[in-house]
């Protein structure tokens, strides 16, 4: 059997890993967003204990290699919490998400802090509560400022997701290595895998850049001089 027909035969199997990889990526990005944004708000506007708590969280999740985090949660923390039944997929997505939250929180923090001070003053002068001002004035601007930096999170998480191979999540790399074990064909399989990653990367960034253009406001944010 020649390499090409092996590739063609196994390609649908390999592609089934795309769904799992995308599942990991979107779950992790979503979790990172849901945790990261409130953390950023807490770090900018919160009390001292809140700010320290976020600081410790960020320090922890940015301070450890992703593989170490994955093993800690897979073998230790989740079983220790009585969550040993969680699937490898869920654990992988959660760990990627928790780590992403640390990075996202800092992207959003920087963005919130770069919204001009007068915006909050003007909002408060109209009788808005701080929360309303944050929601209606600060965040809509901060999100636009954050978007280019946030777009980085997609390729980061996408490439990091391959680490879930180590706990047996059936994502792209895991399936690729299974095919290699079955067929003894190595480079073509890994090259095909690399190709799929690159295409996913390109497609995602294209969508994000489109989004940047769509929410752009004349004279405001990244496009403004």
């Amino acid at each position: 059997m020649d390499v090409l027909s092996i590739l063609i035969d196994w390609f649908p199997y390999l592609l089934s890993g795309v769904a799992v990889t995308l599942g990991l990526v979107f779950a992790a990005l979503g979790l990172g967003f849901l945790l990261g944004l409130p953390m950023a708000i807490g770090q900018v506007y919160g009390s001292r204990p809140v700010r320290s708590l976020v600081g410790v969280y960020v320090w922890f999740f940015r301070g450890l290699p992703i593989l170490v985090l994955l093993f800690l949660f897979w073998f230790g923390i989740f079983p220790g919490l009585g969550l040993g039944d969680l699937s490898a997929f869920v654990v992988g997505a959660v760990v990627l998400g928790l780590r992403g939250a640390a990075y996202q929180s800092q992207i959003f923090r920087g963005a919130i802090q770069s919204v001009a001070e007068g915006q909050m003053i003007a909002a408060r002068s109209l009788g808005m509560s701080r929360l309303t001002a944050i929601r209606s004035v600060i965040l809509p601007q901060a999100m636009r400022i954050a978007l280019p930096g946030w777009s980085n999170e997609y390729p980061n998480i996408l490439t990091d997701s391959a680490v879930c191979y180590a706990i047996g999540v059936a994502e792209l790399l895991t399936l690729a290595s299974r095919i290699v074990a079955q067929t003894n064909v190595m480079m073509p399989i890994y090259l095909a895998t690399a190709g799929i990653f690159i295409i996913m990367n390109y497609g995602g960034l294209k969508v994000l850049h489109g989004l940047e253009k769509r929410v752009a406001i004349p004279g405001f944010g990244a496009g403004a001089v």
Partner: protein
Amino acid sequence: MNDNDYVLRVEDIHKSFGDMEVLRGISFDVQRGETKVFIGPSGTGKSTLLRCINQLTLPDRGRIWLDGEEVTNSGARINYFRQKIGMVFQNFYLFDHLTAVRNVELALLKVRGMGRAEAREKALTELRQVGMEEWADHYPAELSGGQAQRVSIARALAMDPDVILFDEPTSALDPELTREVLEVMRRLARQGMTMLVVTHEMGFACSVANEILFMENGVVAERGAPDMLLHDPRFTRMKEFIGRFDGRPGD
């Protein structure tokens, strides 16, 4: 005259920043429909005074009443008072991500809880007031400074405030744009809006103010009707001050 004739009462306001005593006991009353103008050298606390009135800066001492209700020490009710005390800033502070009309309607929607259609209609009415209706769908970055300031006045007007505080509203504008903003303010004064204005525009002060308060070193050094401060020989400080940079009371 009883308390109710005053929209605003300001009593013995003190404020320090560190060792710097910026306000050293300022008191005045404002009647409905009155325009008071604050003049004086930079750094004498004029802007700080305005910010104390709506509690954007908390005074160290002194009390403020709006329509007989105490604004100072009002806790969370300050958001209620701020709706009734409009503010216009030197640098406009328009919401950069919103078009002119959405700038004006935002607080109507989020603070007043007004419906969309009603808020839009009111916002357009206020923009018409300041001659900016045709620019309703433009973003702040697409407006000249004078246009932006007029939109910010419309934004303050939309809340139907009892008084509007103008904090050097034309200091960031060239003479041409200054004129268009002052024109809007003159019209508001004529229509009976109660206004406190910090400005260096002597022409405006003399033609519009019911009273000028000349501030120096954190106190009101001289106060009175423009004519009196300018022509009564007993008053010298303000004349000296404006003589220093102009020599004439402006247009």
